[in-house]
């Protein structure tokens, strides 16, 4: 969970939370009952500039869905300048280490702007996925889609960084 920031007052309204969750691109076309089940595991948070959504090596305890703001995925050596691997923005999901052992984050995710996000408790999500294989498959496919897309972007990024255009 984030080390800074507090739950928003509006997140106390379960109906509103469900609507916000259902409106996130990650949940597009998910069954209504699945969204309802996810919303029971969801909290809404705000983080300030410089706040960490997650930190490398820490237990991966939540799926994060960014609502507003910009976050940078970073890798930092002790005493060194952080290397920004990618930026994520409102509408993006963040993190899949919560789904796969050893359930620890591989990177830092730091807020570049004030960030509003939804956090879905990983333990509850995994329990829901085990109890309902249809839901489990739907969520795994969505995460898989994110992993594939991110891998394709990363490959393109590698090509662009190493490619020497000829003009």
């Amino acid at each position, binding site marked *: 969970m984030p080390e800074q920031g507090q739950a928003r007052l509006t997140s106390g309204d379960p109906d509103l939370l469900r609507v916000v969750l259902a409106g996130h691109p990650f949940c597009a076309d998910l069954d209504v009952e699945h969204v309802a089940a996810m919303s029971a595991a969801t909290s809404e948070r705000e983080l300030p500039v410089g706040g960490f959504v997650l930190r490398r090596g820490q237990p991966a305890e939540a799926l994060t869905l960014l609502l507003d703001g910009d976050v940078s995925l970073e890798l930092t050596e002790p005493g060194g300048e952080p290397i920004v691997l990618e930026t994520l923005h409102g509408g993006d999901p963040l993190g899949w280490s919560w789904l796969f052992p050893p359930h620890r984050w591989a990177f830092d995710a730091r807020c570049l702007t004030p960030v509003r996000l939804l956090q879905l408790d990983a333990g509850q999500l995994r329990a829901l996925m085990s109890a309902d294989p249809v839901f489990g498959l739907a969520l795994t496919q969505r995460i898989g889609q994110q992993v594939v897309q991110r891998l394709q972007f990363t490959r393109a990024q590698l090509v662009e960084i190493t490619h020497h255009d000829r*003009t």
Partner: protein
Amino acid sequence: MTALDAPTRGTLTSRPYQITTVRHQTHDIVTVDVAPQQYPIAFRPGQFDMVYVYGVGEAAISISSDPATPGLLSHTIRAVGWVTRALNDLQPGSRIGIRGPYGRPWPLEEAEGKDLVVIAGGIGLAPVRPAIVEALRHRERYGRIVLLTGARSPRDLVFRDDLDRWHADRGIDVHVTVDSAVRGWNGRVGVVTKLIPRVPFDPENAVVLTCGPEVMMWFSAEALLKRGVPPERIYVTLERNMKCGVGTCGHCQLGPRFLCRDGPVFSWPEVTGLLGVREL
């Protein structure tokens, strides 16, 4: 009659021009300006010239200046080969030969009444810059104008003055991203294609101009198709080893097409079957 007054003798003969300004865009990219009062070159956005460094050789270079300013002709060059390295080393006052313009321009007329989306990677912003300048001059002819541009790192961004000016211009929606950055860069990090699904434009009523590494254009086209842009409204500009510039020598042949004569601007359906062919 001086050498500068010598008349050109045909499409394969360059004319001499004196460099007025050399603007360093990045550590390996310069924009070389000439003031062609004697031999003005009327060009359309997307066209290129063959630029000759005397005693070294010629290279095909896209024109990056404003087509409505005939008193200033600019070429933006990245130092990668003998000729382009020599061009990067030239100083104001040096003379170069130029012949052109050549090639098929960007289809700005087709974009009238539609959204105009420009996607540029690295120095790929140079060949589309005249199209952006031209479109902004006739802003009322277009719907949204969107620029998505990326570079390897913040220090590899070209035309920063333009980007700053366009950022402040309500007439164009500018999105900049880099592939790699350290702290201090507060913009986006990631490939330019990642921006395509989220920027506001009407995919069914848009014309897209893309210029950059072919891999980038390929990924961009796939993302654009996925978003619903008709393939015939996606345009790319290709680059091969152009020599004659007029479709005679065959150096720039890609399958049945000569890029210098039939391109360099192509619609996606014209080249999609060629770009993935290893043997070409």
